[in-house]
């Protein structure tokens, strides 16, 4: 099973899509242009601090609000390897998988970690933090396939014999 480690950023409950990317920046041309403003209503400095391979750990209802697909695209563009939350809003969950952003549901981790900790994720198995293991429900194979393909567009290109 694929295994990776990363430094974590810790966020609270109900991180809505307007916090992930406020409407006023949605008109910018590309997701790359929008990325510096990610999480700006809450933590304006955060986008600049995130490093490739970092992990977000959040509370419940992450990604609630509108169906804007830019939200997961931006998180991915910032280099976030995966988001671990107590729960995810439905449309955000789908949009993330489709854009190849890994989401993991776990209702205990958020309450024991501190920002800056390092954790290790073994996909479909567990999260390791300070020697403790937190099991993760395995994602169905079709979703793993989409993520592994790098998102739905790439998966479909493969299906159509293009890549």
């Amino acid at each position: 099973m694929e295994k990776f480690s990363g430094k974590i950023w810790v966020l609270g409950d109900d991180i809505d899509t307007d916090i992930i990317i406020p409407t006023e920046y949605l008109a910018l041309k590309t997701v790359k242009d929008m990325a510096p403003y990610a999480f700006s209503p809450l933590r304006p400095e955060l986008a600049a601090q995130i490093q490739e391979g970092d992990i977000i750990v959040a509370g419940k209802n992450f990604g609630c609000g509108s169906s804007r697909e830019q939200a997961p695209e931006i998180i991915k563009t910032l280099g976030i390897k995966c988001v671990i939350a107590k729960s995810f809003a439905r449309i955000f969950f789908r949009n993330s998988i489709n854009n190849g952003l890994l989401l993991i549901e776990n209702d205990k981790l958020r309450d024991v970690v501190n920002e800056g900790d390092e954790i290790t994720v073994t996909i479909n198995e567990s999260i390791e933090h300070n020697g403790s293991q937190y099991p993760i429900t395995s994602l169905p194979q079709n979703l793993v396939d989409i993520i592994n393909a790098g998102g739905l567009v790439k998966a479909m290109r493969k299906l159509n014999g293009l890549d």
Partner: protein
Amino acid sequence: MGSTIIEKIVRNNVGRDVKPGEIVTVNVDRVMIHDIFIPFVASKFEEMGFTKIWDPDKAVLIYDHLVPASQVDDTRHFRIGNEFVEKYGMKNIHRSDGICHQLMTEAGYVKPGDVVFGTDSHTTTYGCVGAFSSGIGYTEMASILGTGTLWIRVPETIKVEITGNLPANVMAKDIILKLIGDLGADGATYKALEFTGDTVEKMSVASRMSMSNMAIEAGAKCALFTPDEKTAEYCEIELTDKERDLVGDADAEYCRVLHYQAEDFVPVMACPSNVDNVKPVAELAGKEIDQVFIGSCTNGRLEDLMAAAEVLKGKHVAPYVKLIVTPASRKIYRQAVENGTMAILAEAGAIITHPSCGLCCGRTGGILTDGETVVATNNRNFLGRMGTSKVGIYLASPKSAAACAAAGKIVVP
């Protein structure tokens, strides 16, 4: 063991019994794309390498957010949409007939038991006729257009039973607002809502639509009503046995059951800036307002306009207050002309626009500024949704909204 409505719909679609939590691939009966997302859907579709739509007749394109255009780049969406329709042989396109969710049911695109997806979070609306419908992003829409299928996780169901007779000044909107207040903004996330009881059985399809439309504001995946004779009449069909069977079985498993007595409901409003911040209108009475908006896929239907007209007949909108009326569809507009509703609203001083999303999507249609207060019949009151972040948005029923317009302040209808 019995099944809930959503379990039956999915079972009928995939041809075997399913249980909540399971991931299955469904065959899609209909999809809806609106003008805001068509450029993205079109480019993703081609990037994926598809050369034809799996079944062009099952796709519907509706221009509603940008009608009429308010910014110079808006018509680009129409141009791209028109090209897409032409290139892939789509026939179902509405360029100025009203709001997508209204047209999907009104124009007969959705039938009981159908599995439908749309590029809009309020796609939950079609549960009013017993269809499973839900909002998705534009990338997934592109893949459905190519494959005709989508994976879904079978949701658990929350049953909401309402019995008894509603007070005269209470509308379906008051019920759904109260429910969202009770459930909270994520109280139904991933879950299906199922409405039952003699109160909803007595409701028109239009009223049911207001409720299924707003289910997303509690996070729900879908919100379902059992198809009945009213549904059949609305959809202009005869119900089949399979459709009649779309009822939650007595021994079905629900993750939660809520019961409400209709007589207990009072007019309520969702206060700034969360849909679950719900309070009785009586507690808010007296607050001065600047504008009233009656319209949207939540409450822009004939019965809503008629309810407003009944309140406003022989009265006039209060001085310095604007009443903006945006019917949900061309058909509704014409019916309201025909039965005299429009004349009453016009006489009362309403600003009546063409059917479209209007103010609800916050691009035009009555934008407000700092310190202003609006009472609106639509579905969201998020910070900044209708102008600056210092605009107070109160969501209400058409009856409450009309009464406020006449009074110039919040009043109990």
